[in-house]
C-alpha cells in the first residue's frame, strides 16, 4: 500500500494536484528573474506562518542569484545610458544651427505672437501674452500640476489632529520638539528679517503686478512672496506667523484663486470657441491695469504659488501649518 502511495506522490498527477493546491511551484527553480525565491521556495509555502527567512537570502554577497541579477541590471543600465548619450550627441550635429534667424522654430507662429501680441492680448511682455492667452490651456494645466502636487504632499506629510495611529503620534511628538528648537530669540535673524521681509513682499507683489509689462509673472512673484513668508516663519516662529497665516488662510486663498482661474479661463475659452465677444477690456498696453484677464490670472497664480511654497516648507518641517 505504501509503495503505491509513494509512486503516486512522485507522479506528475500528484505534482499537478499539489500545484493546483498552491503547495508546489514548478517554475520557481527554473527562473532566476524572481529574485528572492531561488533558494527560498520551500520556506514560502505559507507566508503567514510566521517563518523568518534568513537575512542571507537578501544579502548581495551571499545570494549569488541576487548578485548576478543586480550586476546584469547595472551593466545593462550603464550601457543604455552611454548609448543614449552618444546617440543624442551624434544627432545634435544634424539639428538646425544655433542662433540662426532662418531656423524652423522662427516661423509664422512666433512672428504673430510678436507682431499682434500687444494688440490681441494687451500684454507688453510677449511671453506672458503667449502663456496666458494664446496657450492658456497649457498654463491652466500647469497650475493644476502644482495644485495636485500640494495634494500629494499633504497626503504624505499632513498630520491631522484626530489621527492617533502610532506612526503619526511619533511624528507629532517630533514636530512638537521642532517647535522647541526654533531659534526664537535669534536677534540677528530677527533684525535682518524685519528689514527684509517687507521688501520681499513688496518686491513679490511688484513682480506679480508687472507680469504683463516686464520679466516676471505669477510664478516668480509668488515664489518671492513664499520665500518672504518662510523667512518670517524661521525668525519669529509659528506663533507669530499663525496670527496672519494658518491652514485656513492657505485653504481659502488657494481655493478662491484656483476657482477664479478656472472660471475666468472657462469663460474665455467658451467665448473664443463659439466666436462670441468676450467683453473684457484690454486697456492701454503698458499700464498696470491692462491686458484683460492676464493680470487677474497672474494674481491668482501668484497667490497659489506663494501659499504652496509656504505649505511645502511647513509640511516638510512638521507636517502641519
Amino acid at each position, binding site marked *: 500500500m505504501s509503495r503505491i502511495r509513494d509512486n503516486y506522490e512522485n507522479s506528475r498527477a500528484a505534482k499537478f494536484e499539489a500545484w493546483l493546491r498552491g503547495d508546489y511551484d514548478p517554475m520557481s527553480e527554473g527562473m532566476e528573474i524572481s529574485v528572492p525565491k531561488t533558494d527560498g521556495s520551500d520556506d514560502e509555502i505559507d507566508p503567514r506562518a510566521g517563518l523568518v527567512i534568513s537575512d542571507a537570502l537578501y544579502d548581495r554577497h551571499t545570494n549569488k542569484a541576487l548578485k548576478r541579477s543586480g550586476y546584469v541590471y547595472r551593466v545593462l543600465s550603464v550601457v543604455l545610458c552611454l548609448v543614449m548619450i552618444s546617440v543624442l550627441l551624434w544627432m545634435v550635429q544634424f539639428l538646425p544651427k544655433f542662433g540662426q534667424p532662418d531656423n524652423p522654430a522662427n516661423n509664422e507662429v512666433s512672428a504673430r505672437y510678436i507682431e499682434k501680441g500687444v494688440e490681441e492680448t494687451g500684454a507688453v511682455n510677449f511671453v506672458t501674452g503667449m502663456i496666458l492667452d494664446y496657450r492658456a490651456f497649457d498654463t491652466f494645466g*500647469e497650475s493644476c500640476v502644482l495644485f495636485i502636487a500640494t495634494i500629494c504632499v499633504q*497626503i504624505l506629510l499632513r498630520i491631522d489632529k484626530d489621527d492617533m495611529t502610532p506612526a503619526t503620534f511619533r511624528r507629532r511628538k517630533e514636530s512638537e520638539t521642532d517647535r522647541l528648537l526654533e531659534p526664537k530669540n535669534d536677534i540677528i535673524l530677527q533684525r535682518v528679517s524685519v528689514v527684509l521681509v517687507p521688501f520681499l513682499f513688496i518686491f513679490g507683489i511688484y513682480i506679480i503686478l508687472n507680469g504683463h509689462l516686464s520679466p516676471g509673472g505669477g510664478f516668480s512673484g509668488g515664489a518671492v512672496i513664499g520665500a518672504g513668508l518662510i523667512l518670517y516663519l524661521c525668525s519669529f516662529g509659528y506663533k507669530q506667523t499663525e496670527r496672519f497665516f494658518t491652514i485656513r488662510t492657505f485653504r481659502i486663498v488657494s481655493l478662491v484663486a484656483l476657482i477664479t482661474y478656472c472660471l475666468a479661463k472657462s469663460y474665455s475659452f467658451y467665448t473664443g470657441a463659439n466666436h462670441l465677444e468676450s467683453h473684457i477690456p484690454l486697456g492701454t498696453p503698458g499700464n498696470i491695469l491692462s491686458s484683460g484677464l492676464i493680470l487677474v490670472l497672474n494674481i491668482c497664480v501668484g497667490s497659489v504659488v506663494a501659499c504652496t511654497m509656504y505649505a511645502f516648507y511647513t509640511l516638510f518641517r512638521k507636517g502641519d501649518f
Partner: protein
Amino acid sequence: MEFFRNFPFFSIMIAMFCGIVSSAVSGKSARRISLAMVTGVLVLSACTLVYVGDMGESVTYLMGHFPAPWGNEIRFGTLEAFLALYFSIIMLLSVLGGWSHVITDVEAGKENLFYVLIDMMMSSLLAMIYTNDLFTGYVFVEINTIAACGMIMIRQNGHGIVAAIRYMVMSLIGSGLFLIGLSLLYDITGHLLMVPAHEAIETVVAEGTYRVPLLVIISLMSVGMAIKSGLYPFHSWIPETYGYATPTASAVLSSLVSKGYIILLIKIFYRVIGMDVIVSSHILNALFIFGIVAMVMGSLHAIMQTDCRKMIAYSSVAQIGYIYMGIGLGTKAGMVAAIFHILTHAATKSLLFISAVGLYEVSDGRTDYNGLRNAAYRNRIAGIAFSVGALSMVGFPMLSGFISKYLFATAALERPHKMLLTLLALIISTVLNAVYFLRQVVTIYSGRPGESSSTSNFIKEAISESTFSNRFASIALILLNLFLGLFSEVVIELISRGLEIFA
C-alpha cells in the same frame, strides 16, 4: 445640436473644477461630487458621440480665441468620444466598486484628497484623449503621473510608499525622454500643435533634411511612453503598485492610466509623425518584439505568484504586451485590434480587481493563493465575476477577450513576416493565461470539507458588510464584457471609422 460641440471642453473643465472644490469639503461630499462628476462626464461624452457619430470628420475646438498654429485646441471624432465615454464608465464602476475600501485604507481626514486625485485623473485622461497639442499632452501626462502616484501612496504603509517611489522614478524617466523628444520636434518643425507639426514633418521628410533627428524623436517618444505604460523590460514597478494600492486605485491604474499613455502615443503616430513615416522607421518592429516578449514573460511571472493581486498585476504586463504587439504590426487591422484590446483589458482588469475585493472580504482579508479557497461560495457574485474576468482574459468565446485575440490573429495574417511569431506568442500566452487564471478559478470554487462551516459566523458578517455598490459594479462590468464580446461588430466598426478620421 450645435451646442454639443462644447461638451468635450465642458467635461475636462468640470472634472478639474470638481477636483479643486473637493479639496475643501469632507470625504463623503467629495465622493458624491466625484461620482456626480464622472456620471456627468459620461453623459456629456455620450452626447458628443451622438454629435460626431454621423459627421464623418473630426471637430476642431479652439481653446481660446486663436486658431491652429497659434492657440491651444482640442479635437474630437468618433474614436475620441467613444474612448471618453468608455473610460468614464470604467472610472465610475471602479469608484463604485471600491469606495468602501477607500474609507478603511485611507487615513482619516484625507479621504477627500483621494477623490481630488480621481477627479484630476479623469480630467487628465480626457485631456490626453482630446488634445490636439503636443505640449498640452505633456502637461496632462504629468498630471496623470502625479495623480497615479498619489493613488498608490494614499494607502499609508511602507509598501505603498516604496511602490510609489519606484513608480515615480520610472515614470519620470519616461516623461523626461518624452519631453526631450518634444523639444527636438519643436526645434525641427517649429510647431507644437499636431496638425501644423504634421505638415512640417511632411516637408521635412520630402526634402530629406533632419532624417536622423526625426528618427531619434520617434524613438525617444515611443520609448518614453512605453516606459510609462509599463512595457516588459520596464515593468518592474507594476506588480508592487497594482498589488498594494487600494482596490479602486488598482483598477483605475491598471485599466486606465497606462491606456491613456498608449492612446497619446497612437495619436502622435497618426496625427503628428504620420503612419507611413513610422512604418518606415522600424520603431514598430522594436515595439512588436518587446510586446511579444512581454506577452510571454508577463504570463510566466504571473504563474509564479502566490498572491492573487500580484498575479492579476503580472497579467497586466502581458496584456500591455498584447497592445504593443498590435501596434507593432503596423497595419490598420493591427491598430484596431490594439485599440479593441485596450477596451477589453480595461473592462476585464477592473472586473478582476473589483471582484477580487469581494473575495478577500469573505476570506479574512487574505489575498494569498490558499486563503481564497472556497471563497466563491461565500460571495457568489464576486466568484462569478472573477470567473468571467478570468475566462475573458483566457479568451473564452462570447467574452471580449476572445474577440481581441481573434482580431490580433486576423491582423497578423496580413503581415506574412510577423505572422508566425504573432500566432506563436498568442498561443503560448493563451495557454499560460489559462494555466494561472483557471488555477485561481478552480481554487475559489474548491475547498476542504468542513472549512466553510467552522467560520460561518465570520462569513455572514463579512457578506453583510460587503457593499451593494461592489456587487453592482461587478455585475455592470460583467455586462460590459459580454457586450464587447457579443456586439463586437458595432465597436469594431466604430473604432475603424474613428481611426480613418483620427489622422
